[in-house]
């Protein structure tokens, strides 16, 4: 079977369930931006149009609106694909993991990079259904490895935890520098 003959065939992407929901949301966002244009941008005096601070936001928002409208029309005239609600629920389920990520972000300056990372990887692995001790140990190992590579070796800028302040002198300095 010949699966593509023209460039169009090869590049054609097919609509998936939820396309209409995204098209509506995007157009609504573009409309909101268009209505905020006057309020949120400034046209200054004695300046050429293309040098105006409002020029590029105006171009961007109107192009978003134009293409967004065409995309929505495309969605509306296409046959409905079942599974829209399931798909939207899938999107919303990702918010839980965004929450996990933010919890980790908030934990690091308090508990320190190494302890927070181990807690994060092990508890998230547990949440995902990994119950065998080998899996949880691997999760902890991965956490330690990441800290070793980035903080200990590459010295990326991640602040030490407040909890490290309670450690005795030399150990405190060591933990603040390397973990």
């Amino acid at each position: 079977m010949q699966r593509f003959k023209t460039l169009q065939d090869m590049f054609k992407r097919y609509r998936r369930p939820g396309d209409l929901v995204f098209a509506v949301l995007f157009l609504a966002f573009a409309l909101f931006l268009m209505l905020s244009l006057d309020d949120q941008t400034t046209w200054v005096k004695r300046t050429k149009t293309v040098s105006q601070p409002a020029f590029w936001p105006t171009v961007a928002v109107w192009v978003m609106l134009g293409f967004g409208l065409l995309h929505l029309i495309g969605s509306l005239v296409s046959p409905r694909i079942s599974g829209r609600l399931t798909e939207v629920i899938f999107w919303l389920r990702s918010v839980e993991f965004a929450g996990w990520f933010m919890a980790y972000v908030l934990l690091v300056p308090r508990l320190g990079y190494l302890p927070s990372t181990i807690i994060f990887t092990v508890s998230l692995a547990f949440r995902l259904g990994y119950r065998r001790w080998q899996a949880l140990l691997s999760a902890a190992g991965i956490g330690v490895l990441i800290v070793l590579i980035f903080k200990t070796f590459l010295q990326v800028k991640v602040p030490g935890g407040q909890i490290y302040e309670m450690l005795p002198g030399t150990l405190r300095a060591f933990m603040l520098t390397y973990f």
Partner: protein
Amino acid sequence: MEALFSGVELLARWDVLAALLIGSIGGVVIGAIPGVGAAVAIAILLPATFSLDPIVGLTILLGIYGSSMYGGALPAILINTPGTAVNALTTYDGYPMTKRGEARRALALAYSASFFGGVFSIICLIVLSPVLALIAPHFGSREIFLAALLGIVLVVLAHRGQIFAAGMLAAFGLFLNTVGLEPVKYTRRFTFDQSWLTGGFDLIVVVLGLFALSQAFILLVDKDNTPHPQPIKGSMFGNLGELFKFKRVAAASSSFGVMMGMIPGVGEFTAQFMSYTYARKTSKKPELFGKGSPEGLIASEAANNAVPGAAMIPLLALGIPGEALTAMMLSVFYVHNVIPGPQLFQNNLDFVYALYIAMLLLNVIVIVFLIFSTNILVKVIQIPTRFLGVIILTLSFVGVYSLRNSVTDCAVAAGFGVLGLVLKRLNLPIVPIILGMVLGQIMEVKLRSSMARVKTPLDFVDRPIAAILAGLLLLVIVLHIRTLFKEHKNRIAEQDHDHDVHDSQQR
């Protein structure tokens, strides 16, 4: 010649060589794991490279960029799942060969074709560099503006069948670039009186969200899955030489890769399409294409590996990235105050050569590594997908947080992560957003500075290169419309389409 030797000298440092080794081998491993591509890895590593020397940081990133596609061929051939998006076409002929019991032959052909494509493109570029050094200074503000505009138009038109979505997302990228305090008249744009919006959206935060966090979220929400490829028996050495039987296809495909790589916004997919079509049309056994044709496999792999080298041309010569990965690299240049553009080719040709030689070396390292380590890689790709999600999420934290220790950045990245997940699930393109952001900034600055000497619209194109670029812009649009009509007549039946060919486009 002097610049070439000086470039070699720049590389002759232990830290650069270590970076080369880590980048190239790391890239192969990352490319081989389905679900993680070069974009995810580069996004995560980007902030970590800021503290390194420009040549060291760029060598690591180039290593990953240039070698991930080698690794991506492995799962494409063994388990019919492309490791990176641009290996999707490799599955067409690679997997049927595995089913026929020719996995070793398919892998050897893929590796040797990739090597041929990679080396071919770099040799072309080394030869071309002095010419570029002559042409690049003729690019003033208006030429760079027009080239950036051409890049935006091409990236939209390249997303065939989804032009409306690509257009609206490229415009969204343009919009994101405008948010915040504008640097010339000091007015606020779309800040809604929120202090966290005053600084605008940082490209790296957006990139990390759209590429890395979104991938982590997809893997975490989706069902757990562990690929189980069969190990390869015997040595691959014997099969590597088979490429010479297909040297015409390999050379033509690499040439397509170089040409398409140089044009901003086009890239691997168009190069692969052209070389695959060429290979099929000129083959003695066209009926084998899609059923395990060695020529089809070579066309796909040689073309995609010839692109990274060529994509460095618009980036280095004009400061215009042609796709998401080079857009990320642009930020490394800026952080180190090395401004890519005509001046770089004039004043730092040795630096440019050093990058090309590094790319040449990485191809050698990768092919040697692959010959001996394919079976180790087969084990590496057996990581359960949800576990992989945990790893990417943990790594993404380092990427975002180490930028400026900002919780707001992390929240913004998480928001873009959710947006990225929605786009990936809908199979909508992410690259136009990134290019819209980067090229939008270039266009705004260059249009403003070029208007000083422009009185009428025709003045804008009164220089030869500007006129050529404007002509190209018109030509591209006219040709696109013509092609649409032609292809409509030529299209194949709806049910015969491969609906998932670009399922993995966003990795």
